[in-house]
């Protein structure tokens, strides 16, 4: 495969404003694409902004509650106009566009920290919901199931990723390595200096390119009318996140970044053949695994809280004695509560 350019966009969201932030994604994706990027990655929960207040407010005080309501309103829903704008941008620019978003189901009130991968054909090719939020994040985000632990063939390598401290889940990483991941996205809010060694370790462990991408936002980027702003946020020196974006080669060498303290697009040229050849030395799911000793099973089944069944379509036009069971199950479907046995009402 020939080398391609990948871009990590370090930027500030338009905080808690989904459509304005998506406008910024579109503009920055255009800019990255004009530099030749075939893959453009945005930070964790970039749309409509990482809920930083979970680390500053008391968990359920009035400010936290009103901010949650705002986040819920501004979250991204799959199959919505917001999602459509991102998909069309990927198609128009002919790029893979990976965006961190706070996401929810159409009718849901639980938010997920998701990574959305839009393909150059304008489809939502992958969605991964963070499996385990960290600390204060557990007060705003639910936990995803194993169905998002996928990788996608991008044409220039297999693409996938984990979000922030999920990158400290050895079994989740193994699930991606097992799918032959070549380009590993690690959107994060982690600003610590040791985050870079973690990216380098993953690159060496999986012999994969690693694209770390972090938001860059300070208190002066927040809207004036943000609830709790005066109580919880300061001025230009109050960084919510300074940024930490970097791109690492499969051996663990840093090839771009880390960029801190400013917005910018971190670009690097990558070559999947290099990653695959590096596995001569180490392959965690091949010659350097011990499947006779250590065997991992991953449940990749989507796990909805409630699954609805309707069997009435299968009820024959002329009911016979044999269809009694079917009829009883049909009676238990939503919309017919009156037919539930009395003790179940």
């Amino acid at each position, binding site marked *: 495969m020939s080398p391609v350019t990948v871009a990590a966009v370090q930027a500030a969201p338009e905080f808690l404003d989904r459509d304005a932030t998506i406008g910024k994604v579109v503009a920055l994706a255009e800019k990255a694409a004009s530099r030749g990027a075939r893959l453009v990655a945005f930070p964790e929960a970039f749309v409509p902004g990482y809920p930083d207040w979970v680390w500053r407010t008391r968990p359920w005080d009035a400010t936290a509650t009103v901010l949650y309501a705002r986040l819920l309103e501004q979250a991204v829903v799959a199959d919505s106009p917001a999602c459509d704008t991102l998909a069309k941008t990927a198609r128009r620019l002919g790029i893979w566009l990976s965006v961190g978003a706070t996401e929810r189901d159409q009718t849901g009130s639980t938010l997920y920290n998701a990574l959305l991968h839009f393909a150059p054909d304008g489809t939502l090719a992958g969605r991964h919901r963070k499996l385990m939020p960290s600390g204060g994040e557990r007060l705003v985000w639910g936990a995803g199931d194993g169905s998002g632990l996928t990788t996608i063939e991008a044409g220039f390598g297999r693409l996938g990723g984990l979000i922030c401290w999920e990158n400290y889940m050895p*079994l*989740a990483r193994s699930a991606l390595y097992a799918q032959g991941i070549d380009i590993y996205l690690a959107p994060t809010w982690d600003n610590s200096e040791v985050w*870079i060694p973690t990216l380098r370790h993953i690159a060496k462990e999986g012999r994969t390119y690693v694209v770390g991408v972090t938001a860059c936002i300070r208190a002066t980027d927040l809207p004036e009318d943000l609830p709790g702003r005066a109580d919880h946020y300061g001025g230009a020196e109050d960084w919510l996140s300074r940024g930490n974006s970097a791109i690492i080669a499969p051996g663990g060498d840093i090839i771009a970044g880390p960029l801190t303290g400013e917005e910018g697009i971190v670009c690097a040229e990558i070559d999947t053949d290099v990653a695959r050849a590096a596995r001569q030395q180490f392959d965690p799911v091949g010659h*350097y695994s011990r499947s006779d*000793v*250590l065997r*991992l*099973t991953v449940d990749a089944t989507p796990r909805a809280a409630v699954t609805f069944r309707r069997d009435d379509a299968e009820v024959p036009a002329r009911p016979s004695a044999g269809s009694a069971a079917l009829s009883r199950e049909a009676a238990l479907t939503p919309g017919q509560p009156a037919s539930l046995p009395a003790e179940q009402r």
Partner: protein
Amino acid sequence: MTTLRIAAVQASYVLMDRDATIGKVTALTAAAAARGAQLIVFPEVFVPGTPIWIDTQPIWKGDEDWFALLADNAVVIPGRASEHLAEIAAEHRVWLVIGVQEREPHGSTIYNTVLYFSPLGELAGRHRKLVPTGSERTVWGMGDGSTLRVIDTGVARIGGLICWENYMPLARFHLYAQGVQVWLAPTLASGDGWIATMRHIARENRMFVVGVNPVLHADQVPAGFPGRDRLIPAGYLDDNGPWLEEGNTVVVAPSGTVLAGPVRQREETLIADLSLRDVTVARRHLDPAGHYNRPDIFRLQVNTSPRPAVIESGTIAAISQLNGGSDEYHASDEHARA
């Protein structure tokens, strides 16, 4: 809570000389114990040193004498060398953890093994490297899953993996799930990339990490060593520099912050006081085998049974009889099938 004083010994071995190298272990352990160390860690295959030829020459090219030397100087358990190491631990009342080239009493396969000796002079643990790396596969066999155990010293739970085993996520997870607090990583790996890995692993399981390397300059290879000129060809030194082992010993805190080292190009024993409370406190943030795990999604199965080359049916029948004889081994069935 308690504090554990550890010593990470970066030192030179006497190449392929088991007894002379154990002499160094004796002196270095005494020195570290005099500084109050309770746990003293030596590098990967320190006794009797690294089989340097596997990287300085093509595989199997004129290595007969060297392999013979290695086999003669390997540590056999039980044997005089391992008894001697146990005595050193007992004499100084310390935990002594040391990498050795090990073989079975009648075996010709060498294993890359780490031995754990208790302050009572007992061999409390033994880990054979699961997968050797690259050219190492031409001198070392593979361990089984029976040696992946964390040990409780009474002060801390200690355990670890050898060199690039540290890149095996499943093996690490298995030890994390056993509550390891102080991670020992004897290694030959040089450079900053390895330090990044030590820091990552510390932060991944919020524990202390002790990486320990040997250090050896080309001039330290004894003048009379067989085939010395071929062992370290001039071209190899031109490409790689005069340090056959550069050293990289480091101690890392549960936050991923480097506490001591990395030390390179000299012998040095790093001493560090590890407060176990730091592990407990850090795990409220992240505990990969606890609150940050998803056991509904991930299920890791580990086969911890010893896997000897042969299980004699007579032995099984005997064991079965001891157990009441109910599920006796039907050797006759196999004959019938044959």
